[in-house]
């Protein structure tokens, strides 16, 4: 029982990292209909930018912010100068995923070319731990949980209570109709890419802090977990992604009790396969059905 509880602690940390990542992934998909599988590599790149910041003496949490902003800006630029031109040219979704995977290759190996194949390390404080029953957290882990929850709440507030959020939901629901009703769809799509990049960048650094190191292939495993979380919740559904992140995050750590640690990512994969076999649309089926990605 103690083991289950202490793993729950780790699970909450992992879930808090997956939260912004899965929200970013799914938010961008819902606004654009493009599955961006370069997302994992974009996160890794931002995590390395975070590393560069810390190694130049920037504080850890400022580095996280800077990496998030970097992620947002690169994501916006990639959309403007790479993906939108392809979309305008009539490249199908089929072709777009080939473009995003090519992008993933370019980013991942650019990281390797610059920083090499070895992991780089974040400077972490050696502060004490906080005990909550049989769960224990380091100070950094508590901040990570805080950031993850705050980003999820901020997304909720943005989508529910602001005009921009309303426009974003309108574009996600029916882009041509939104455009016809005077919503500046292109700007909303840009914003979705930027938010997605920001969330991904922040999550990349959060994972780096949690693992204390980042390597150029970090995004690959992470991408599996993000996709599992997003698909479980129903791809394109922001609240589904939140639910999916929590389930996958906790499951990843709890399964490490039963399976040996190295096999933990398999549990995320198992969830993905089960969802695809039983209910390919995910728990919240709305977007997947409306966009025709799964039936």
């Amino acid at each position, binding site marked *: 029982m103690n083991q289950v509880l202490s793993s729950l602690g780790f699970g909450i940390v992992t879930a808090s990292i997956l939260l912004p990542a899965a929200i970013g992934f799914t938010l961008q998909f819902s606004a654009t209909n493009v*599955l961006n*599988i370069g997302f994992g590599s974009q996160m890794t790149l931002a995590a390395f930018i975070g590393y560069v910041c810390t190694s130049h003496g920037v504080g850890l949490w400022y580095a996280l912010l800077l990496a998030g902003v970097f992620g947002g800006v690169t994501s916006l630029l990639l959309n403007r100068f*790479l993906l939108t*031109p*392809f979309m305008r*040219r009539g*490249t199908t*979704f*089929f*072709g*777009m*995923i*080939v*473009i995003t*995977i*090519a*992008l*993933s*290759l*370019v980013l*991942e*190996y*650019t990281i*390797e*070319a610059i920083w*090499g*194949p070895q992991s780089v390390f974040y400077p972490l404080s050696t502060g004490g731990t906080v005990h909550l029953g049989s769960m224990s957290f380091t100070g950094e882990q508590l901040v990570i949980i805080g950031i993850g929850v705050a980003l999820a709440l901020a997304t909720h507030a943005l989508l529910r209570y602001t005009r921009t959020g309303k426009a974003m939901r309108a574009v996600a629901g029916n882009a041509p109709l939104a455009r016809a009703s005077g919503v500046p769809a292109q700007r909303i799509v840009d914003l979705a890419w930027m938010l997605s990049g920001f969330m991904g960048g922040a999550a990349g650094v959060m994972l780096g802090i949690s693992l204390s190191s980042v390597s150029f292939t970090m995004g*690959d*495993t992470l*991408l*599996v977990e993000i*996709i*599992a979380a997003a698909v479980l919740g129903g*791809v394109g559904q922001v609240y589904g992604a939140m639910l999916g992140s929590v389930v996958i995050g906790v499951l990843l750590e709890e399964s490490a009790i039963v399976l040996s640690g*190295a*096999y933990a*990512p*398999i549990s995320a*994969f198992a969830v*993905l*396969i089960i969802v*695809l*076999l039983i209910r*390919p649309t995910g728990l919240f089926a709305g977007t997947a059905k409306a*966009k*025709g*990605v*799964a*039936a």
Partner: protein
Amino acid sequence: MSYYFTVMAMYILIGIIAAWGLNLQFGETGVLNFAYVLFIAAGAYTTAVLTLGHPSANGTQQYFWGAHLPFPIPWIVSMAVGAVLGVAVGLVSLRRLRGDYQAMVMLVVSLIATYLVSANVGFLNGETGLALIPQPFGNLHLSELNYRWFFVAVTAVVTLLVFEVMRRITGSPLGRVLRAVRENEAAAVALGTNVVKMRLLTMAVGGAVAALAGAIEVQFIGAWAPAGWTYPETFGLFAAVLVGGRGNLGGVALGAFLVQGLFLEGTVLLPSIGNPDLVGAVQWITMGVMIMLFMWFRPRGVLPERRRRFTTEARTRLPLLLVRAQRDARG
């Protein structure tokens, strides 16, 4: 130098075989199999355990089971394994999902498979991989160089066989149905094609061809490890198909020659600059850029598909052509 030519020739031929298998799935039928390298690996591992003999005979290497079978049995079993795996992966990812969503799921399958094999040392010797895999024609007692050229000749014959199979599939009524599935799924369904069955068929055939390529490769180089089948390898082959011209067997072979042969292996001849990781990294970056450039400037490749009967211009005629394809398919 002659030694090096045999290596180049082998990589080009293996690349061509693998690219044709991918072309059947991606070029003809429009299945984005982002886990393609997994099938090459399945063939390679199958052949490895079927030639290495019982694990206890190879004290330092761990693997779950082994036998010592003569050529060509391991290659044939590899193809069967590739086909079965193709159907298994297809059953999970192909049903009820949009094409790009299928691709995403297959990428996840590829990533997890590499992870699983690396983490589980007892299964296929983990990250270290299998080595000292016996040569298939060892009892011919040829000199080293002659042996290598003999191996190249055998592979060339296999390549021709694969070409003939591919030519027959793509030229047949079945090939027309596959292209119908690619060009307009809804119309194909409306005319009674079982689209999922057709996709599963290409997963099986393409998987078998990929496994054959893997089987040949593992016997030639004598070793196989997870580092050799990470997900970018799949996109090396996608680049070959895209550069050459999807749906055109000759074009795909040209693409495999250029990308797999000259670009990926030929760079070994260049004087080394910087660290060895840098060359590899720059190769993959160039590969990604190349895919994007071809998608932008020449999406149909250097040698485009001939007789494009199902292009968008022909959409008005499509139902008629589909009826004909269907009738032919039923014989």
